[in-house]
């Protein structure tokens, strides 16, 4: 099993939350997306996505806006500027870790660690 390399933001450095952040980062800087569409893009259950969003919201990486379209309530989710910076720092750290590992011989090819079935 791999160990979290030091210096990686633990809020982002988890598979599901990383995917949430990448998806939100693909939107324009002040862009947002509805909960159901985000869920569809990520193929997560509603409860699962809500849990991860709460963690991201607690870190103030994600902003959640509740509004109405006509009479229907709509929840929009977007990355905050703080979240965008955190994601940029995260990818910069990843690249620094990889480049550091590349000075010697090539790192061993990682086979994805087997994870619990979803």
């Amino acid at each position, binding site marked *: 099993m791999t160990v979290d390399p030091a210096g990686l933001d633990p809020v982002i450095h988890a598979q599901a939350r990383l995917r949430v952040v990448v998806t939100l980062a*693909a939107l324009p800087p002040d862009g947002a*997306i*509805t909960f159901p569409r985000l869920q569809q893009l990520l193929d997560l259950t509603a409860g699962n996505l809500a849990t991860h969003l709460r963690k991201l919201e607690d870190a103030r990486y994600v902003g959640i806006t509740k509004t109405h379209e006509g009479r229907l309530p709509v929840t929009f989710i977007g990355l905050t500027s703080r979240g965008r910076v955190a994601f940029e720092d995260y990818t910069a750290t990843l690249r620094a870790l*990889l480049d550091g590992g590349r000075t010697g011989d090539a790192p061993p090819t990682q086979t994805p660690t087997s994870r619990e079935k979803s």
Partner: protein
Amino acid sequence: MTDRPRSTTDDDTTGLSPEESLALIGAQRRATQRALEIDDRLLYGAWGIAWVVAYGITYLVYGADPSDPSGPVWLAGVVWPVAIGAALLVTFLHVHRRRAGVAEQVSGTLYGLAYMIAIAGAGLTGGVLPRLLPTVDPAFASIAPSAFIVLAIATIYLVSGAVWGDRLQFGVGAWLVLVNALSLMSGTDTYTLGMAVGGGGGFLVAALLAWLRDRTAEAPPAR
């Protein structure tokens, strides 16, 4: 290369290696782009077919001499709303599907409005201008709205291509300006032929170039 990142579970806090994280970021980014981005191949293709059919049939109906139509005039009247309507329908349905759930940006709304206002204004200008002449030339009056509308569309392509750094879109705009001008210079008789081949054909070439561009972009990354 895994195309779609795996679904994950709640207690997913297993450590990812930096390689795994980067691969996951790349895969998720590509999946998101594929799901949300407007497919240029489809839209250029739809408008290419619409222009080839509409301008092409108009040319075939009126032939080399617009005052002596060689085909059914009603067909040239019907083909425009049908061809343009079909391309508009494809465009609206595609954009609606891809952008579902994505918060409407002011820039997106204004962009749509810019198209509508520019096309309406160009059509009006091209419709009114021939009537200001001492004698109305039917051949000139029939192509003037198209000449102005194509120029308006081409200008929007140029500007949005420049703003988004989309070379293909910018190129389509520049090409349409050129084809429109050359077709006008060729004379009122052959204007529609020029627009069918150069304009419609240009869009179809753009669809092909967009396909090639996307295929290159989707090639597996170096790491």
